[in-house]
Each structure stands twice: as structure tokens, then as C-alpha cells.
């Protein structure tokens, strides 16, 4: 063997050992950096996608169909704040197109809580009851009084966002006046029930104090002495007592007892509700609100995910063994070399998955297993050519040489078409099946590229080892 061949073999060996090490050692730190690869909780330390470890996959759309990039990014930031505060490990939150957001929450099983947390704008506002002329007689009448002319004018009460004039400026008392980060869950000292505490900013506190001073002017039995605390009621006034519009049911309607110089508490909540509300108030307001319900939802049970992973690993192992057996049966010595290259291929690709790291999804796993079948195709084409050339009376050396050269155009063309498809799938992936297709496309692309490389270079180098040995004269072994 020539010196260059030794170097090539040494390089292959080096890559294989490195890849083997990186796959079978579950976690390690990348050299010269602090980043850690792998995980102790998964098979081979692979990074698992939602469909293999369980969790929720949601796609939200903004109410405004054409938000600016900054608005969408800001909204993603708010969602991230909320999700982080909720305590979800390694969420994926990213934009999808120009007006959508993908939220992936691995390991989350309480889908309802997750959706409550993310979708709602969580805009808090404080309202007062105002009497307005009743233009629609079907509405309930709260009060009617005689006009100066003696005519009876029908009136109705509605909740309007309260405002006070502070230092000559009209200040609306709503979520914008909250000091970010001030919200927290507390417990009522007497009843022990959960509540949300927060702080108004200076102008907000003053406006609130002035509002309460105004409300205590009403007699205690007058409904107008109530303060309405609303969540996500929108900008329009809400009807009193019954209003079917979403959000128009007040969270609370305390009767104001005295002038309140500080900030109110929101009581009467469930613990979960209190926790989610405080997280939402702290995370800030959406620059552009989302539609309440996700437009796409997919949730995977953790047990089903774990099952799918086990089944996938089993299928992969069975697949690779069957392919190896087939190759050895059909191509003997060449087949053994191809089986070895296939094992190298599998380990190298798995190590690439860990190195980047690629998130392994169910469809990605399918693509990888499928690629085990594709990977030997190039070898099949080459070996058939080698057989042909040996039958034509050539020595092993020149048969290998010519076999590789003649098979190359078909291998190149065949693999390029699959890579074209992988590229198209990747490109469309985010608009098909809400991003689930991309994992497949990426894995398929990597698989086809590396299978071609191993089939061409690794198989050839190993086959060349035999050339100088007595085995090379036993042509039957190679054809």
C-alpha cells in the first residue's frame, strides 16, 4: 500500500473512533468551549424532539394579520418570559412566517394550563359603572329618572375603563400602569386563599387613589360604588350584570370601602390561576395580541413518545442488521466491507446529530432508518459493476477502480435527486405540518450526503486493503 493510503486509513480510523466516542459517551463538553453536548436521560444522549419525549406543540396567529417584525419579535419575547417563569425546560419559541408563532413545550402535560398561559393577552383594567342613555330598549334598565322636562329617559349602566386626571393628564387605570415584575402570588392573611399582588407606578397609584375617592361618594348600596376588575375585556365598555362578550365577566367587583392610596389585590382566584396571572402581568403586554386559541395544536403523551422512541430504536437496529445480512449474503467479501461502512455511516451520522445538535423527531428518526437502506445503494451499484468487470476478466484492483468510476454517474444522479427533494421539503417544511416535516428533511439530507461519502470513500479504502493480500486472487469472494 502507498503511504497516502495509510494516511487515508488512519484518518478514517480517527473519525470512527471520535464518532464512536461521541455517540456512546452520553455527555461531554465541547473542547475549548463550555457547551455541553448530549444528555444523561435519553438513549445515546440524543436530543429528543417533542414527539419522542412528549409535550405540547402550539401555533398561534396574531390578531393583526400584518404585524411588523419588531411587534412579532416582541410578542415572542413576552411568550418566552411567560414560559420561562412558568418553569418549562428548553422551550422552543419562534416565529413562523410573518404572523405566527410556534411554541413547543417539551414535557408539559397540562395542555390547558399551557394554553391559558400563552394565548391570553392578560390585559388588566379597572372599570367604573357609568349611566348612559339606553338606546336599545331590550337591555336591562338599571335606573330611570325624570328629566327636567318631566320626560322619562331610559338609562343603563355600563362598565367603562376608569380614568382620573393626574397633573393635568388623563390617566387610564389599566395594565400599562403596572410596574413590570411587581406582580406576585400572595395569600390572604385571614382566609388563606391565593391572591395576586402588584404595584401601580406613581401616576397609576395617584389615578387609582382619586378613583377610589370618587367611588366612596356613592351610597354604600349603590352599585356604582363597585370597582370592576376585568381581564382581557378589550377597549369597549361592558354591559352591567350580563354581557356575553368574552372577557366581559369581571374578575372581581369589590365595593370600595375607603380611599385606597396604594394598589389593590386580586383575590378569589385558584392557585394555578393566580400563578399564571402573576406571570402574565410580569411578562409585560403583547406588542401585538394573539388569537386566544392556537390555530394548530398537537400534544404527545410522554408515554407514547417514549414508546415511539423505543420502537424506533428497535426498528433501526433490526433494519441495520437485516441490511448487513443481505449485503453479506449477496456480495460476500464486498458485502462484509459494505456492512462495516454501514456501521461507520450510522455512528458518524449519530455523532453529527449529537455534535450540532440536531433535535431528533419521530419523522427524523424515520428518515435516519430509511437512510440505512439508501446508504448501501451506492455500494450495490459499485459491487455489481465490480462483479461485471471481474467476469470480464479483470484483476481485482482494476475491477475496483473501474467499478467505482463507472457506477459514479448513476450514484451521483440518484443521490442528487433525493437531496433536491430533501431541500424542497426543508424549505416547505415550516409551512407543512407546522414544522414537523423539517426534521425529516434535514435528517434525510444529512443521511444521503454522508451515505454517499461513506459508500465512496470508506468502502473503497477498506477494499483496497485486500489488494496486497493473497485474498485478492480469490476473485470469487468479491463477485
Amino acid at each position, binding site marked *: 500500500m502507498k503511504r497516502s493510503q495509510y494516511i487515508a486509513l488512519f484518518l478514517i480510523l480517527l473519525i470512527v473512533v471520535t464518532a464512536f466516542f461521541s455517540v456512546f459517551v452520553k455527555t461531554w463538553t465541547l473542547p475549548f468551549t463550555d457547551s455541553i453536548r448530549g444528555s444523561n436521560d435519553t438513549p445515546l444522549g440524543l436530543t429528543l424532539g417533542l414527539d419522542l419525549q412528549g409535550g405540547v406543540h402550539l401555533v398561534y396567529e396574531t390578531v393583526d394579520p400584518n404585524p411588523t417584525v419588531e411587534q412579532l419579535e416582541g410578542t415572542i419575547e413576552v411568550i418566552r418570559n411567560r414560559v420561562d417563569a412558568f418553569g418549562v425546560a428548553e422551550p422552543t419559541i419562534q416565529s413562523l412566517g410573518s404572523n405566527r408563532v410556534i411554541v413547543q413545550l417539551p414535557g408539559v402535560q397540562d395542555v390547558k394550563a399551557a394554553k391559558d398561559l400563552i394565548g391570553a393577552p392578560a390585559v388588566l383594567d379597572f372599570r367604573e359603572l357609568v349611566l348612559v342613555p339606553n338606546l336599545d330598549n331590550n337591555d336591562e334598565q338599571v335606573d330611570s329618572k325624570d328629566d327636567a322636562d318631566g320626560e322619562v329617559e331610559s338609562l343603563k349602566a355600563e362598565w367603562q375603563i376608569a380614568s382620573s386626571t393626574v397633573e393635568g393628564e388623563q390617566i387610564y387605570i389599566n395594565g400599562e400602569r403596572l410596574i413590570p415584575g411587581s406582580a406576585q402570588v400572595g395569600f390572604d392573611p385571614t382566609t388563606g386563599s391565593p391572591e395576586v399582588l402588584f404595584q401601580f407606578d406613581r401616576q397609576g397609584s395617584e389615578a387609582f387613589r382619586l378613583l377610589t375617592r370618587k367611588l366612596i361618594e356613592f351610597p354604600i348600596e349603590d352599585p356604582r360604588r363597585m370597582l370592576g376588575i376585568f381581564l382581557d375585556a378589550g377597549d369597549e365598555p361592558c354591559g352591567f350584570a350580563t354581557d356575553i362578550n368574552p372577557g366581559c365577566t369581571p374578575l372581581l367587583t369589590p365595593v370600595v370601602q375607603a380611599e385606597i392610596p396604594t394598589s389593590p389585590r386580586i383575590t378569589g382566584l385558584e392557585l394555578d390561576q393566580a400563578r399564571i396571572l402573576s406571570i402574565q402581568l410580569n411578562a409585560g403586554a403583547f406588542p401585538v395580541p394573539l388569537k386566544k386559541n392556537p390555530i394548530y395544536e398537537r400534544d404527545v403523551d410522554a408515554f407514547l413518545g417514549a414508546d415511539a422512541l423505543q*420502537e424506533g430504536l*428497535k426498528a433501526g437496529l433490526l433494519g441495520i442488521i*437485516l441490511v448487513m445480512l443481505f449485503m453479506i449474503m449477496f456480495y460476500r467479501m464486498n458485502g462484509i466491507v459494505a456492512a462495516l461502512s454501514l456501521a461507520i455511516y450510522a455512528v458518524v451520522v449519530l455523532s453529527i446529530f449529537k455534535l450540532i445538535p440536531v433535535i431528533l423527531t419521530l419523522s427524523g428518526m424515520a428518515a435516519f432508518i430509511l437512510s440505512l437502506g439508501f446508504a448501501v445503494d451506492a455500494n450495490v451499484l459499485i459491487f455489481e459493476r465490480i462483479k461485471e468487470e471481474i467476469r470480464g476478466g479483470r484483476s481485482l484492483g482494476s475491477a475496483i477502480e473501474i467499478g467505482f468510476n463507472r457506477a459514479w454517474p*448513476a450514484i451521483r444522479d440518484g443521490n442528487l435527486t433525493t437531496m*433536491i*427533494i430533501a431541500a424542497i421539503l426543508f424549505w416547505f417544511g415550516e409551512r407543512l405540518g407546522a414544522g414537523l416535516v423539517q426534521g425529516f428533511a434535514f435528517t434525510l439530507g444529512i443521511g444521503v450526503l454522508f451515505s454517499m461519502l461513506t459508500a465512496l470513500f470508506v468502502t473503497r479504502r477498506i477494499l483496497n486493503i485486500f489488494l496486497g493480500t493473497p485474498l485478492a486472487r480469490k476473485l470469487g469472494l468479491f463477485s
Partner: protein
Amino acid sequence: MWNIVQYRGLYFLFSAIIILGGISTLFMGPGLSLSIEFKGGAAVRAEFSQPVTQEEVEKIISGQLQYENGIIQSFGNGEFLIRLPLSEDAGNQENEIRTGLEQLSPLNMNFDQVSPTIAKETVVNAIIAIGVAVLGILAFIIYAFRGVAHSFRYGVSAILALAHDILVAIAVAGVASAFFGNFFRLEISSMFLVGVLTLLGYSINDTIVIFDRIRENLLRETHTTLEETVNFSILESMGRSINTSFTTLVVLLALLLVGPISIFDFIFVMIIGVISGTYSSIFTASQVLVSWETRSLGRMPFSNKR
């Protein structure tokens, strides 16, 4: 020498019967349907430990909760798939169904919800993706075979073989769901589409192997007529064409036997498509090419005409 090419008319007839027969099952009652990813709606997969009957589930969904137009499918092993149109308030619908099914104490429940807007977009994007894929492959083959006369005809013949494979996969899936729909679930889902697109890239490989041989033999002028050259090339490369498909079939069978059931759509399409792809590279792509070049469909067996 075994003359495969002469009966090409027969192969086209055979393919047409399978495709038309299979596709017609799609229009006969419940069979292969679109998944909610393509038509929108809600799908609930629920698994129960204790024996639960279809009636019990039906009673909750359409009786207690009054959801109409639902399809409830049972897979025997305590596993149910419930498909419903999406209500106005999807969040509330999900909560109601969750609470409703809790009465039967399920082991697990999984919800998928797709709004009609995103479903419509998915359909459009799927069609565009297939279109772009087909055009990309056509352009690539015309370019790769620029050395031979009429490389355009090679490209179109290969694309016809691809269309053949996709149609056969859909036809067989249609027959399978029409007759065995109670034993497994098969729908046109995004994994089905992924299978179709993967096939577009993969089943073309067999065709390329044979076309590559035809190209080589034409340049070497091994035979005098195109018919003979193609026939010789097919016979020469049939073995490897079958073997490359076989290695892929082997891993697909491993996936089918022990792999995750949730990608069944994908495995099914791939298995049928890979088999059909091997067939079509020999009996469709090459034969279309010969028919086009010679303007003749060959002859039928048992006929004296030539």
C-alpha cells in the same frame, strides 16, 4: 434474448387497471380520507385500560356533549380515534371533551387541532411542494442526460414513472382503507405527504440507473435499434435495480414490524411506492421512452401483428 420491451402496451394497460381501480375506491363511501392537517378539525386519540365500547364513547361525544358529525374509530385494543369538526371556541371544545372522556378513565389522551385556515394553506403548500419537486427533478434529468438525443423525453418518461408510483401508492392505500379500514388507520396526513415526496426523490433512482445504462450503451453503440438497446440495458441493470430497492424495503419492513405505529402512513406509502418504483423503472419509464421514440406501443401477447 428475453424481449421485455415488445409487450410495452400490455404494461401500460396493467398499470392503468390498478391505478383506475384503486382510485375509484376513493369515491365509493368511507375509505382513505384526508387527515385534519389537510382539512382542519380536531382529532382525539384516547387509550383506555378497562374495556370501553364504541357506544360508550359515542354516548359521551354525541349524546352528552352534543358534538355532531364526529367520526369515532375503534382499534380494538382500547384505542380510539375521534375526529370532529372544530368548534368556534376550540379551547372550550377541548376542555369539554377532556372532561367528558375522563369519565371512562383513559390511560392517555392526545389532542390535535388544526384550524381550517392553516389546513387550507397546508393543502396549497403541499401542491406547490409536489409541483416544485417534479419540476426540479425534470430539470435535473434533462440536464443530466443532455449528452443523448431527446433528453427532454428521458425527463418526461421519468416523471411519468414517478406519477405512476404516486398514483399506485394512493390507489393501494385507497383499496386498503376501503377493505381493511377497521384494522388500521391510514389517512392522507403530513407523514403520507412526506412519504410521497420522499418517493419522488427515491423511486427516480431506479429509473436513473436504467437510463444511465441506456445512455452508456447508446454511446457505445452496442445495438442497432433503440428497442434492442433499451431491452439490453434493462436486462443488464435489472438485478441492481431490484437489489437497491430490496435494501430499502428491508428497513421499511423493520419499521413496519417493530417501528412506531404513528408513522404508519409514511411506511405504507414508502413500501408500496418502492415496489412500484422498481416496477415502473423497468415497465413504465423505459417503455414510455421507447414508445415515444418509436411511436409504437409494441405488440400484445398472442397476437400475430408486429
